[in-house]
């Protein structure tokens, strides 16, 4: 006689585990849903038809009513009221709402304090690289308030050639709390130079480079940073055992998140 009970046990265990996992997932979802419910503390909360100040206010949520947060878009948060109306509320007005447990919630956009605590930033700079128009994008990571690292990709488009570059920089910010905070940078990378096809007897070449630089950055508002910098590049061309010196000036905007 075949014992059915014995071989059934492992799948049974599996099913139990699966059920447990599913029920856990459901409770997690339920928790997430309850997490996104808030209670209005202000006398009223205005709901706009769209995520912008120009969109008309079509509904007002009264004090002590609970609303469900659905999604965010820039400075606006989409809500659903208890009676199923959906609309957009401004982030600053949401500041005066409480979680069902009575805890205060934080909705405000980025502040100078967040800027000091930033980790990642992305930036876009334009300028001049040895007489050629320069476009740079970079991604930076802040280790400590005084030390950060960046990876940048640039293209310098000149009358006689195009240079495509990648650099890794280390930045030192000796006075990170200053309104206009200076920084010093040191880095290395590579440059690929492609002369114009209309020029004869010129070949593409790739060379290693190193640079030092100095700059200044300032926190503007929300998540924006302005920065301007000067870098001195040395391109190890290997032609006639000489190096090429190139000055770079650029300025642009960055945002942190």
């Amino acid at each position: 006689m075949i014992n059915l009970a014995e071989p059934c046990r492992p799948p049974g265990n599996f099913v139990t585990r699966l059920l447990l996992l599913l029920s856990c997932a459901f409770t997690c979802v339920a928790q997430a849903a309850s997490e996104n419910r808030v209670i209005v503390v202000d006398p009223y909360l205005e709901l706009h038809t769209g995520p912008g100040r120009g969109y008309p206010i079509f509904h007002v949520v009264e004090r002590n009513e609970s609303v469900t947060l659905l999604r965010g878009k820039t400075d606006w948060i989409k809500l659903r009221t208890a009676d199923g109306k959906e609309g957009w509320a401004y982030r600053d007005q949401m500041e005066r709402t409480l979680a069902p447990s009575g805890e205060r919630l934080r909705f405000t956009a980025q502040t100078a304090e967040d800027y000091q605590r930033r980790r990642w930033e992305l930036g876009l700079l334009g300028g001049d690289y040895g007489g050629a128009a320069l476009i740079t994008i970079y991604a930076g990571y802040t280790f400590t308030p005084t030390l950060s690292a960046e990876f940048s990709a640039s293209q310098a488009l000149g009358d006689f050639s195009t240079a495509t570059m990648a650099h890794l920089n280390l930045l030192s910010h000796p006075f990170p709390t200053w309104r206009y905070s200076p920084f010093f940078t040191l880095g290395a990378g590579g440059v690929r130079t492609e002369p114009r096809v209309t020029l004869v007897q010129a070949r593409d070449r790739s060379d290693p480079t190193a640079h030092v630089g100095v700059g200044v950055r300032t926190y503007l508002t929300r998540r924006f940073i302005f920065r301007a910098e000067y870098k001195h590049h040395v391109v190890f061309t290997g032609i006639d055992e000489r190096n090429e010196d190139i000055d770079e000036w650029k300025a642009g905007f960055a945002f942190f998140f």
Partner: protein
Amino acid sequence: MEGGLRILFLKRLLCGAVMVSGLSGVVRAADDAVAALDPAVERREVQTPRIDSENFELGLYAGLLSVEDFGAHAVFGVRLAYHLSEDFFVEAAYGQSDAGLTSFERLSGAARLIEEEERTMRFYNLSLGVNVLPGEAFLGARRAYANALYLIGGAGSTDFAGDERFTFNFGAGYRLLFNDWLALRLDVRDHVFDMDLLGVDETTHNLEVSGGVTVFF
């Protein structure tokens, strides 16, 4: 006499010391009472609710690009935007188009100014856009869609006829949101760059008209 005074003084001193120590005991007891009450006050933590913010916009577009001297041809591209606020957004775009023959090449017959593979124009640009005139568009009596015009401009590079050229772009567009995450985009853009194909540097204006669909996430 003198000894008696000294004893009196010592007595007073002792008495004072006892009083002070007694007082400090009372103060400590009061402290203890406060300490005993303290845990009853709950610490209120400020928490940030987890909301799915949809500030990125990714989309594909197709349209017509008129390359100066080379005719107008289909252009296809991809763009990724990040909305910084309700007014401003930054956008990176990449596009590609195949340019045709110049009038000179057509008339002369066999003469070719550039190689066939150099006729493919590839460009990228990084631009800043500003939303102007936001509003709602009405379709019938029951449906309203958010929409806005935007002005956009930036810089980038165009790879065409064997060379890469610094390119400015500027233009305007229209964004119509079907719902919270799907939008229709119509865009008119002028790509301005210098060409020296015929030996002389000249500034060319290359107009691009396109339409596309974008997704917010």
